[in-house]
């Protein structure tokens, strides 16, 4: 019988980020192509070696056939070519799909490239469209929900149920910034304190400005191939050991539960495939569009018990040198958040860490990591377990 598990069958063999932050005048297509070519070069390959291409649409430059347009720009002619529907969790569900495409022979070398210009490239109408792109048009949007407000609903529910505090949420932003301070590529690098977070402007109670992620321009890409092919390539392969998804709702008013998310199923599925446990992870990159998501994810992914996320983050575990460094590049909160590509930077960072190439911020002796992304309003989750050993 065919072994259906993806465990160890596919490896990441090339990674690259563009510069991130405020990059006026650079289109998402230009940044996506730059990242793709740099990732291909990092893998020691030529663009003509690529026979699979996955992209996501760019809000600042929407296209009907985004992946095809990217292939055309690059003048590559893949046999597997698709643009995924946008969303924070989609980034890693794409990796899940791309790995499956390699395992089933749809392609041998797949480039996943994403970029957007949320900071500099949106017209006023596009920015409004982004704000309105979440929320039920008939039964939610009329009440004026903002994106931070949706996540504030989750934070408030967690506070009411478990006694979680604003200080605890703030400590997540502090930890991400402490990591970013060690990463020259990060958009925001000045250290902040819990007091700084609490004194920043209230956006939607209990979320302050510094509980909210950045708005950025930037792009990132990876190259995936089979583990057999990866064995004699330029870079140390970083293997996909587990992948799992969970999808529970789209609209927050239809969520099964505000304080337990489908990250739970995503994590269980990914860990089960990998044969590893949360305690085996040397670091984790957790989706941090707003601080409460990280706290809920830590619980749902099994890094601490439900309701104990507040105490866990307050202990300093997430900081550089902590028991579970989280978002070692700085995360969406401090590295960059160019929209849908946001999680790609957590993935490239994980590869650099596992290769031992993260210089001033290296988590010593890293062998295994969990990366997680979510989309919608804690709706759609994908968890990936990465490691330096295929078996």
């Amino acid at each position: 019988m065919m072994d259906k598990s993806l465990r160890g069958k596919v490896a990441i063999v090339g990674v690259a980020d563009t510069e991130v932050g405020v990059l006026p005048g650079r289109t998402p297509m230009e940044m996506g192509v730059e990242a793709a070519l740099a990732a291909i070069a990092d893998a020691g390959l030529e663009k003509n070696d690529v026979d699979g291409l996955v992209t996501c649409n760019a809000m600042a430059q929407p296209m009907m056939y985004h992946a095809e347009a990217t292939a055309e720009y690059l003048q590559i002619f893949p046999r597997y070519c698709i643009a995924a529907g946008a969303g924070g969790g989609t980034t890693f569900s794409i990796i899940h799909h791309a790995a499956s495409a390699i395992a089933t022979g749809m392609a041998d070398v797949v480039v996943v490239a994403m970029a957007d210009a949320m900071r500099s490239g949106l017209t006023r109408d596009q920015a409004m469209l982004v704000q309105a792109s979440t929320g039920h048009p008939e039964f939610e949007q009329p009440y004026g929900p903002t994106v931070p407000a949706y996540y504030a609903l989750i934070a408030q529910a967690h506070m009411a149920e478990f006694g979680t505090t604003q200080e605890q949420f703030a400590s997540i932003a502090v930890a991400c910034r402490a990591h970013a301070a060690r990463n020259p590529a990060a958009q925001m690098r000045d250290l902040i304190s819990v007091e700084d977070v609490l004194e920043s402007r209230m956006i939607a109670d209990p979320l302050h400005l510094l509980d909210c992620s950045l708005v950025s321009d930037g792009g990132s890409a990876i190259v995936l191939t089979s583990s057999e092919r990866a064995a004699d390539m330029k870079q140390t392969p970083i293997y996909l050991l587990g992948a799992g998804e969970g999808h529970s709702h789209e609209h927050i008013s239809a969520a099964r539960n505000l304080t337990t998310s489908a990250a739970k199923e995503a994590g269980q599925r990914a860990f089960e495939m990998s044969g590893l446990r949360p305690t085996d992870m040397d670091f984790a990159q957790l989706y941090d569009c707003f601080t409460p998501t990280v706290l809920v994810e830590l619980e749902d992914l099994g890094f601490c018990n439900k309701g104990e996320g507040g105490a866990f983050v307050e202990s300093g575990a997430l900081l550089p040198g902590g028991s579970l460094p989280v978002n070692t590049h700085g995360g969406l909160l401090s590295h960059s958040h160019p929209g849908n590509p946001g999680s790609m930077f957590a993935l490239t960072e994980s590869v650099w860490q596992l290769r031992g190439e993260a210089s001033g911020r290296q988590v010593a002796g890293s062998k295994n990591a969990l990366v997680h992304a979510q989309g919608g309003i804690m709706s759609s989750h994908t968890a990936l377990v990465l490691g330096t050993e295929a078996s």
Partner: protein
Amino acid sequence: MTTETPGKVLPQPSVLTEPYWEACRQGELTMQRCEGCQAYQFYPRTICSHCGGRDLAWSVVSGRGQIKSFTIVRRGISRAYEAPYVLALINLDEGPCMMSSLVGCDPDTVVVGARVTVAFESWSTDIEMPVFKLVKAS
């Protein structure tokens, strides 16, 4: 009241949802209820999301419930929404959860679990918007 509230996102009723908005115009909050399993559901659908049944009828609900969660929006989504305003998820006594606004209260007094009751605001000639008010402790 026939004054248009400029700039607010107005619901665009469909054939399926028009009875909900018609009831709102009459000052009543209604939900779909399955004739098969008796469950209420929200938002409206062509199927019962509990049992898959197709026999759904509109039923007037109490308009009472409690706050599942809330936030005080300090930076409004547009100038049509004057901040601060309270956005809330309401667990209705009949079961369904809905998003709404909490009006007529000091935002800083709102807590999760507080009892609320429905009220209606005229947003246009066609739309009476269901919002909620805190039930005063007796």
